């Protein structure tokens, strides 16, 4: 009968193959006296040298197969072999206690493994695996034991193990290994990270159930959902074979879009950008083929701490993103705090209606110390890439003018003090307050670009708190009221030769995309995971057709009518 085991889907995909079970031997050295401690130290050093040689070989082969970035793990391993607190402590223990090297090494490594295992940060906790991997390798060398070598696997299989060390994972023979399942581990384990970069399906942390899997059993692993079937029935096998074929086809299709331009079927070019909220997100944006950063939320720099970030800290973060994007546009939004995001250390008065209170730029114009520090950091970073500065929550023109004046003041001062500042920084604003949307023509003369924050624009237009579930039905991005506002903003900007983006959820919404394209939106900014499906969708649409279709949609009765209109058009093939 089928046995079902659930675990963490660490690397997506589906695999069907027989199990190869790795029996990790647990070896705990026994304490025994060393008659000549100096010779024991020598034996230890020789084992360390042997381990060094092995790791260096693995490092070189990983670098060749997977690139320098993945090989860095093994530089970390080499560093462990040189670590004074490990090596000198082991040698000290051998000498002082006259014990065998195996025992001393095990003891010292164990203290590090335990200390690392207690850390809060999951990724750091996983570093215990490195110590286990390296010390296990030295122990093998001391004992003259050959470690398992996964590069020798010759038949198609799913590898089942208690855990895979980083060196195990790096040596998997990808020609035959279809996936792996481990008893322990998390999404941030080395093996999980490695699996994602190798594009091998992996389920980790599947628990003790993994131990009962017999070698040679047929396994179905669905690492899109973290489900493992042992000895599936013929029906299950057939169903998963079909699911796997579909999944693989779909992935191959989507991946093609990563390197393509964002162009409609009739040659209209737009830009697909990524929204990011942390520095780590930049790589993911690039991996998914983002052409720009359309919204860099800077709140992360201010939140979860007890004091304001320094100007220097901010400068480093902005510079990092600008350099990483290598000349591609990066729209950085100034601090958007207030509303649902609080900063206890600013000690702001409690407001009864924070979403309608002193939020974002309103607060920045009041707390100019905070605002000016951020602007200086941005200006200083500007020469490292293609920076665009964006002000949030503007309701009336005076706010924009005041923000621009302060920016200009800081710029003049910086330049006067000899700091190099880019001369081509665009300065734009979010459109999220209905007053700004309705009077976009007034703003279009003063702003270099608009980015429509649809989440807030919908909440303010519908007067419906987006946190309140009882009114969540009013979150209607395709309602004609919202679409008309968007059309007005785009038309007003176009009249002044300015560009418009959308940086809310709506930009990645496959139903809204045809409408936004038709209305003439220039930039679609979304979470990295939405980019490829969005680019695929745009590639299937005719801009010309949707120019008139989107105008038709504006006169429909409501959200539902617009959505079904779009669906009908898409299914009817008129867009093709």
């Amino acid at each position: 009968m089928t046995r079902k085991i659930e675990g963490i889907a660490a690397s997506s995909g589906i695999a069907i193959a027989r199990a190869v079970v790795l029996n990790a031997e647990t070896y705990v050295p026994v304490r025994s006296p060393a008659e000549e401690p100096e010779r024991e130290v020598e034996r230890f050093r020789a084992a360390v040298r042997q381990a060094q040689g092995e790791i260096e070989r693995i490092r070189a082969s990983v670098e060749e197969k997977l690139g320098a970035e993945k090989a860095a793990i093994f530089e970390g391993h080499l560093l462990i072999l040189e670590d004074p607190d490990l090596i000198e402590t082991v040698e000290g223990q051998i000498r002082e206690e006259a014990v065998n090297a195996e025992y001393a090494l095990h003891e010292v490594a164990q203290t590090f493994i335990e200390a690392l295992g207690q850390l809060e940060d999951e990724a750091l906790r996983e570093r215990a695996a490195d110590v286990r991997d390296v010390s296990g390798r030295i122990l093998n060398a001391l004992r003259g034991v050959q470690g398992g070598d996964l590069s020798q696997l010759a038949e198609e299989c799913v590898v089942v193990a208690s855990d895979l060390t980083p060196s195990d994972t790096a040596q998997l023979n990808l020609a035959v290994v279809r996936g792996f399942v481990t008893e322990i581990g998390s999404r941030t384990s080395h093996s999980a990270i490695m699996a994602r970069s190798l594009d091998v399906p992996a389920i980790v942390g599947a628990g003790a159930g993994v131990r009962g899997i017999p070698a040679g059993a047929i396994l179905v692993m669905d690492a899109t959902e973290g489900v493992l079937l042992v000895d599936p029935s013929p029906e299950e096998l057939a169903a998963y074979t079909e699911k796997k074929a579909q999944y693989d086809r779909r992935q191959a299709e989507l991946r093609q879009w990563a390197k393509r331009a964002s162009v409609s079927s009739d040659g209209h070019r737009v830009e697909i950008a990524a929204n990011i909220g942390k520095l780590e997100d930049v790589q993911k944006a690039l991996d998914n083929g983002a052409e720009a950063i359309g919204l860099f939320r800077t709140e992360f720099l201010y939140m979860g701490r007890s004091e304001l970030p320094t100007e220097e800290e901010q400068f480093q973060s902005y510079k990092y993103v600008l350099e990483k994007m290598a000349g591609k546009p990066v729209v950085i939004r100034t601090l958007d705090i207030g509303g649902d995001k609080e900063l206890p250390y600013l000690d702001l008065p409690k407001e009864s209606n924070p979403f309608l209170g002193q939020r974002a730029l309103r607060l920045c114009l009041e707390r100019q110390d905070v605002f000016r520090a951020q602007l200086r950091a941005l200006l200083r970073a500007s020469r490292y890439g293609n920076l665009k500065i964006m002000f949030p929550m503007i309701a009336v023109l005076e706010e924009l003018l005041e923000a621009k004046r302060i920016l200009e003041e800081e710029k003049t001062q910086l330049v006067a003090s000899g700091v190099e500042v880019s001369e081509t920084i665009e300065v734009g604003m979010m459109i999220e307050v209905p007053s700004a949307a309705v009077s976009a023509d007034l703003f279009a003369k003063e702003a270099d670009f608009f980015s429509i924050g649809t989440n807030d624009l919908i909440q303010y237009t519908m007067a419906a708190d987006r946190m309140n579930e009882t009114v969540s039905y009013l979150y209607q991005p395709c309602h004609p009221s919202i679409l008309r506002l968007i059309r007005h903003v785009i038309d007003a900007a176009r009249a002044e030769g300015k560009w418009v983006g959308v940086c809310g959820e709506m930009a990645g919404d496959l139903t809204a995309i045809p409408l936004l394209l038709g209305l003439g939106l220039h930039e679609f900014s979304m979470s990295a995971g939405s980019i490829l499906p969005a680019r695929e969708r745009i590639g299937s649409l005719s801009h010309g057709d949707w120019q008139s279709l989107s105008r038709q949609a504006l006169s429909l009765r409501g959200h539902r009518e617009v959505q079904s209109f779009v669906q009908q058009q898409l299914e009817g093939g008129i867009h093709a």
Partner: protein
Amino acid sequence: MITQSFTVTSPTGLHVRPIKTFVEAAGKFPCKISVLSKGKKVNGKSSLSMLTLGVAAHDEVTLEIDGEGEQEAMKTLGEILLRIHE
């Protein structure tokens, strides 16, 4: 002996790579280098010991440096703590 405190900027805190950079730089100085964070004090020339500090982004770290070249070591190592690492 000189001491100075720094706020770590790198988004993932003091992880393997920043620590590698730090330890390699620290190893070039003859002086004694200690790293303090959250009440623990470890050897700044040991990557494993530095990892056990579990320093996250925005955590404060104090360097305590004693001996030959301490000024220059403080400057070099402080800069590494503030830098953003891949």
